């Protein structure tokens, strides 16, 4: 009798086993696909030990990564916190790849494993597969192959050129990672095979391309012609350029071919993580919404026992707490909490709209198909635009959000908006600005190269609202760029 087996609990014991996981997975999948209409990559669920989880942390959650001391530093740091008991481990790590790999910690109880599967293997997975940023910028098919290639390539470089050389190069490249993504133009997606095939050709061509820059400068020419040439070359170099590593990889006069390839690897990895940095609120919100929905559905059909559900809710609330601004250890807005609350609110607006909702969200208030609305949001927005579009008064009131303005000139901060009818828009706009990583990352571009003189490279930092760069890290980073460029590098501060 299918009804009966359908309403029997999926598992009784708190210990997990593979059968119970498989059973739960099937039940979760049924709800995710049939009810929520999620569209996911095939799932691969891997059970790992605590030690392996710490390993995975330290390489950005990736299963394979080239070797570098900074990962060791992170490992040592995480391991210490974990051993001390200061921090628990994440229950899962999920990788944006096809198949979508979720790591589950072996210490999880069965209820937690079910929660994690719903959260990662369906929530995150759906988001990875459907959000336009991920579709556009990251290559889920090729990432693991690419990382494998990167690791091998860098290991070979270490053998050939020495650990120290490679380490210095990686240090320098890492410090430019965040300023080395294409924000506006899509880089050609390159499969591993093409990559390898093109490598040889590229190395040859690029050496030639670099040398031509310096060939001519000794010859004396009339000023006008020289200017013309400079302009032309700048055009050829496509200045200004926002992707620093890309520029250095192509145009640095001193790098060896293998060094260019390593810069390219670092740049590609930065690009792969770029969408994740732009969708923290949405990605986690989506995963939390999905696990909350699925777990409740399982519970109401009797397939989760009350005990298991309590444990799940306990963990759910732990993750989704938004501490007040003055609470100890408060780290600002919790992206999990905000994303989840907004998505729950979207559902509420669809199902039970108030007059206020009709005013704020005329397009979705009272719409039958809340699933469709959410699917559309998950697919077509990123944090900034999502908040711009969907952060409504209800959520602002619930979180008691308020905006605070700080001008360095004043000796006080001003509360610029609170959760009242005059403040909703202002609070929302500030939130949007906070979430926009093109605002939180410094805007730095290569603007000029003195090809005929001392070969200096000129960068420009466009200050927003007069916010300066941190002087100490700025100087250290400039030193790193100098080591990659080989000649002097200057940074100009400019206000917008």
């Amino acid at each position, binding site marked *: 009798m299918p009804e009966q087996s359908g309403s029997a609990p999926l598992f009784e014991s708190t210990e997990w086993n593979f059968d119970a996981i498989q059973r739960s997975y099937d039940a979760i999948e049924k709800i995710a696909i049939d009810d929520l209409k999620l569209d996911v990559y095939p799932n691969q669920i891997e*059970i790992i030990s605590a030690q392996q989880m710490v390993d995975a942390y330290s*390489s950005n959650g990736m299963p394979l990564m080239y070797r570098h001391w900074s990962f060791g530093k992170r490992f040592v*740091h995480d391991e210490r916190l974990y051993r001390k008991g200061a921090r628990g481990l994440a229950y899962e790590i999920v990788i944006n790849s096809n198949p979508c790999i979720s790591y589950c910690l072996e210490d999880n109880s069965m209820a937690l494993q079910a929660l994690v599967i719903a959260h990662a293997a369906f929530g995150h997975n759906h988001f990875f597969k459907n959000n336009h940023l991920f579709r556009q910028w990251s290559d889920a098919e090729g990432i693991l192959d690419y990382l494998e290639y990167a690791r091998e390539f860098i290991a070979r470089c270490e053998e050939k050129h020495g650990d120290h050389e490679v380490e210095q190069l990686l240090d320098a490249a890492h410090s430019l990672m965040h300023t080395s993504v294409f924000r506006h133009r899509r880089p050609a997606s390159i499969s591993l095979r093409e990559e390898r095939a093109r490598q040889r050709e590229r190395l040859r061509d690029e050496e030639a391309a670099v040398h031509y820059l310096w060939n001519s400068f000794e010859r004396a020419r009339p000023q006008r012609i020289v200017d013309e040439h400079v302009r032309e070359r700048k055009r050829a170099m496509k200045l200004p350029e926002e992707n620093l590593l890309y520029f250095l990889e192509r145009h640095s006069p001193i790098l060896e071919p293998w060094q260019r390839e390593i810069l390219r690897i670092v740049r590609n990895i930065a690009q792969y993580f770029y969408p994740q940095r732009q969708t923290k609120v949405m990605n986690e919100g989506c995963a939390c919404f999905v696990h909350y929905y699925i777990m409740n559905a399982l519970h109401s059909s009797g397939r989760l026992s009350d005990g298991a559900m309590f444990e799940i809710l306990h963990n759910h609330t732990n993750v989704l707490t938004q501490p007040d601004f003055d609470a100890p250890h408060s780290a600002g807005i919790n992206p999990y909490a905000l994303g989840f609350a907004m998505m729950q609110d979207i559902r509420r607006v669809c199902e039970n709209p108030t007059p206020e909702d009709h005013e704020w969200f005329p397009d979705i208030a009272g719409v039958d198909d809340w699933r469709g609305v959410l699917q559309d949001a998950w697919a077509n927005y990123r944090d900034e635009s999502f908040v711009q579009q969907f952060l409504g008064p209800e959520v602002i009131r619930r979180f008691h959000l*308020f905006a605070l303005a*700080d001008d360095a000139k004043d000796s006080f*901060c001003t509360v610029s908006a609170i959760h009242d009818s005059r403040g909703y828009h202002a609070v929302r706009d500030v939130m949007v600005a906070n979430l926009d990583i093109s605002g*939180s990352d410094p805007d730095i571009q290569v603007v000029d190269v003195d090809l005929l003189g001392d070969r200096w490279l000129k960068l420009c930092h466009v200050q927003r609202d007069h916010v300066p*760069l941190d002087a100490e890290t700025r100087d250290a980073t400039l030193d790193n760029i100098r080591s990659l460029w080989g000649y002097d590098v200057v940074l100009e501060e400019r206000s917008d």
Partner: protein
Amino acid sequence: MAHLVDRRLNPKGKSHGNRRRFIGRVRAAVKNAVDESVRNRDIADADGEKMITVPAKGIAEPSFRHAAKGGRRQWVLSGNRSFSVGDRIRKPPSGAPGGGGREGSADGEGEDDFLFLLTRNEFLELYFEDLELPDLVKRSLKEIKAAKPIRMGYTVAGTPANLSVMRTMRNAYGRRIAMRRPKIRDLDDLILRIQALEALDMPDAAELAELGELRERVDLLRKRQRSVPFVDPLDVRYKFFEMRPEPSSKAVMFCLMDVSASMGEREKDLAKRFFVLLHLFLKQRYDKIELVFIRHTQTASEVDEETFFHSRETGGTVVSTALKQMKEVINQRYPPSEWNIYAAQASDGENYGGDSEVCADLLQEALMPLCQYFAYIEILQESEVKLMNSDDNGMELWRAYRKVAGHCPNFAMKRIATPADIYPVFRELFVKKGQGVSDA
């Protein structure tokens, strides 16, 4: 359909390479921290896992970031209780306003000094670095305990080298009997009989019948033989070994030190390294080690470790008082029949006139017969080393001890000015140990 993979058995320690690189990167800083930490902890737990603090400088990962201050900014915060629009909040004198609004650094760990745990091996590796120990010695010191394989019965799994032929064959024999495997000799008899019958020119009917019956029987027996193998994997037994710590006993280590005013921080630090090394050596040899600290000026007293290294005393120097004290302690608490007695003495070589002869006599007559090993180091200024380039020169105590060394093979003495000089004092001890291992 999910693909479930159990990765728990995959090799751990994926990050070891990275960890090694990291330690290499901060090696100088870690080395300092290691030395510092040995200075601050007890001899008995000088080794072992240890938290090490590394200054943030040198492991920073710079990138372009916005400064924490300056310009105009706005934040959204949660949990408003009493603010209304236009409220002004005075900025705290330093740091960012509002408490929660400041952006953390990218890696979330800020600029604090970096604290991490070194494993025992990593720790000792760094600690040994400037002691210039030979590799063999380093290795043997890092092994926590000498263990010896002891036979512990049999197991069903093991390496071919440990195969127990006797036990395996015995099992096979028992099984063959129980399963009634036809004996090879019986079968041979039957075959002989068949051959005899076949050799007959004109067999009669009875003989033909017998031949047919015999052939059937042989077939049956052969079949049976095949189905009951001579040696079955079930029979195989391997000798099982368990690693047991070598039979160990008790040792007591006496640390004697001159604490008169002429022993400064540098001298005490060298002395401590010397004591630590001896302790590490004893630790891998004996299960239980007791430490006795005796310090002396013109009088000697037994003290705890803290007092031994850190409290100051003034007064003259009479070395023999320490030796007398040691003798007394041995008599009271450490009967040589039960205890292995080791002693390490550190001094700057000064002694009250005429006392050195007393010391030499005391050692030779009373102490050396009881001790396994007595090591003496004289701590010099680096500038003095050149003056004292011959072992024959030296002050009274040195010359008196030279005589003892001449008589007793288990007495070692050495002048040291840097950590690298310490090891040769122990060389004999380690050499002896090395031979002991190869003999065993």
